[in-house]
């Protein structure tokens, strides 16, 4: 879920622009011919409410950022391409630490930098212009391989956050901290929901971790995982075995992490994953079925959409090459869904499903339908 307010993003962008204004070192306008890195790393000062990038752009090639966390929150730094395709990222930068991001940007164009204090939300963004084109031979296979590798990186980053967030949730359950656990439940699930099709590809883990009470199970197999703890927290009260259920959830989460590291995805799987995430929204979230005890379905909704966006973003260069009309439609419709969800934001979270009217869910359904059709075209375009 993204909790960074847009106001914050705007402030960040202004700050970055202001900074850019007083930087005299514009990137060389000449076409890079490979490896045209700027002299020395581009410094990034990442505060809790600011993200100051010392140059507004760079020549194509290898670009190095040096990110110093000047704030009190753990932060992340991203370089995005069109459609929020992740060109590179560095995570878990603790307060006071400096980390480097070395990223290959072969093609000139409009990019975006983002700091994510607290490691959540869209981040504090600023435009970043890459000029020229680095020499390289990019055939279709290379682009597809870059797409899957990029998505793999993103999935791994989600898993890396998922494990500690889930640990925090389980710790609260085991400590009997019902309110604390309730607050952490939708946050932990956010990371799960973003990569749900990947997690579901492991058919043995998904029912244990994300099964619902009325799912069919083999004799002797119990109702476990997130939704069992959800029911304990919101309906039944914590049970004698709630802690054990939590421990098992952590075992499974770490198992998932280990398996995801070795996962090999195809471009079609990415595209179908993006579609499946929207299907999840349509059949599970807009109906309020997923989180039937906590009613925190909109957190999951947002995370599914982000996951879909992540997969599409990774494929974006291939999509743009094969059907230049599809990407802008996807951008616009993802934005429409995001904008709509924003109207249901309450603080760091969202309205509960039970607070939504029929008109609300109708609007959501319309926005997801509008996005679902072009998303369903991605796999065919990528393989055309």
């Amino acid at each position, binding site marked *: 879920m993204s909790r960074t307010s847009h106001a914050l993003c705007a402030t960040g962008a202004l700050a970055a622009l202001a900074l850019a204004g007083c930087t005299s070192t514009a990137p060389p306008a000449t076409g890079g011919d490979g490896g045209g890195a700027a002299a020395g790393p581009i410094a990034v000062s990442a505060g809790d409410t600011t993200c100051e990038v010392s140059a507004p752009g760079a020549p194509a090639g290898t670009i190095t950022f040096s990110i110093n966390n000047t704030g009190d929150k753990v932060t992340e730094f991203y370089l995005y391409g069109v459609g929020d395709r992740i060109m590179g990222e560095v995570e878990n930068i603790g307060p006071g630490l400096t980390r480097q991001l070395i990223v290959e940007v072969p093609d000139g164009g409009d990019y975006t930098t983002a700091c994510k204090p607290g490691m959540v939300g869209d981040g504090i963004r600023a435009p970043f212009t890459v000029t020229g084109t680095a020499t390289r031979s990019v055939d279709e296979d290379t682009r597809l391989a870059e797409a899957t590798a990029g998505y793999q990186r993103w999935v791994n980053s989600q898993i890396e956050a998922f494990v500690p967030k889930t640990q925090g949730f389980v710790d609260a359950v085991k400590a009997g901290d019902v309110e604390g656990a309730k607050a952490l439940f939708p946050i932990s699930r956010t990371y799960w929901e973003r990569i749900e099709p990947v997690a579901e590809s492991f058919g043995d883990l998904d029912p244990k971790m994300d099964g619902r009470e009325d799912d069919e199970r083999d004799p002797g197999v119990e109702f476990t995982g997130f939704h069992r703890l959800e029911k304990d927290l919101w309906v039944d009260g914590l049970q004698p075995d709630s802690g054990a259920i939590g421990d098992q959830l952590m075992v499974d989460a770490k198992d998932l992490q280990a398996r995801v590291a070795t996962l090999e995805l195809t471009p079609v799987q990415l595209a179908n994953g993006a579609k499946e995430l929207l299907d999840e929204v349509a059949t599970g979230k807009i109906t309020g079925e997923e989180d039937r005890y906590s009613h925190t379905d909109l957190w999951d909704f947002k995370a599914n959409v982000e996951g879909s966006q992540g997969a599409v973003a990774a494929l974006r260069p291939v999509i743009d090459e094969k059907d230049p009309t599809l990407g802008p439609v996807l951008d616009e419709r993802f934005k429409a869904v995001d904008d709509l969800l924003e109207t249901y934001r309450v603080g760091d979270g969202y309205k509960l499903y039970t607070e939504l009217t029929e008109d609300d869910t109708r609007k959501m359904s319309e926005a997801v339908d509008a996005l679902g059709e072009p998303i369903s075209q991605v*796999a065919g375009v990528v393989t*055309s």
Partner: protein
Amino acid sequence: MTRLSRRRLFGLAGAGAALAGVGAAAGCTAAAEPVPGPAEAVVPFRGARQAGIVTPAQDRLHFVALDLTTDDRDRVIALLKKWTAAAERMVAGAETTPGGAVNRNPDAPPDDTGEALGLPASSLTLTFGIGAGLLDKLGLADRMPAGLAPLPGFTGDQLDPATSGGDLCIQACAQDPQVAVHAVRNLVRMGFGTTTVRWSQLGFGRTSSTSTAQATARNLFGFKDGTHNLKAEDGAELDRHVWVQPGDGPAWLDGGTYLVARRIRMHIEIWDRTSLSEQERIIGRDKGEGAPLGKQAEFDLADYAALDATGSPVIPTIAHIRLASAENLGGTRILRRGYNFVDGSDGQGHLDAGLFFIAFLRDPHGQFVPMQSALANSDDLMEYIEHTGSAVFACPAGLAEGAYWGQSLLEP
């Protein structure tokens, strides 16, 4: 008992008089274009008038009303062009795109949903209408025709906003229900992101004949409906009562017509407990033959002046056919093209059944409103029916080669 009105719409058996303008209509039978019987029949998509209006009424209906989800005129135009191309192909019995159902990249969802694959054209017609909301949303209120002004409320209306109104509509009629449903489904799918379904209605059997070549069909009250309907062969009468004439309003609708839709729920269980004589008195016709009371044959003219031995009118003063007759309404006639429906059941042990009334006319407020008003206030049929949905659309004239739906409004 209150009187219900809607009924008239159907033009139930009795109504014949009303709508068709009794006398006149009866006289003007003529050989017509062939009834759309053969499954292979293809109704031309382009021409001076849209198909699906005076086209001999097909047996099946799928009607959909949609709302725009954008105010971007260019995007709407792009969709209308796409719709027109697909509609023209489907009407000819083809997939929405060449080979669209199966002959494409296996990793992509098929363009065409496929359920009409192998089925003949089945006389499919797709008729396009524009609601007031479209003009409002696209900033075209200055081109709003007077006929799209909201209808007044009528006595006994139980309108559900969820099954009323709409920014535009598509009426799909065919001899095969699967062909009609396929057409609507695929057009709806193309519209995601630009339009959203507001409501839709299936009809399983026509209740009107729109050609003298067709036998009169029966509605769910068991009566012949539309005996004196306006018909394709009525030439000058159609110009007078159905087709919008130059000077009536904004030029974009010249040669077009208005479509008034009313979803009329019938309390059929109550009706079925009504004696035959009462049913016939309410309608004003005999049930078997469909003749006006006091007459022998269906197409005999009703004699509204005739009295029985006791001095009472043979056709009661509040009989449906009398109230809806042209004589009672100053000569007003409309073209009815309604369908029977059963939308499952109502959860209380009754069928959710009725008549989906569709009428085409030149002036909703000058023709439909007075007729419905007379019926709503006096008609005994109102005890057995209630109007649960209502909408008015403007259906432009037919398309010339290369033109698209709505072009006369959007890019005149």
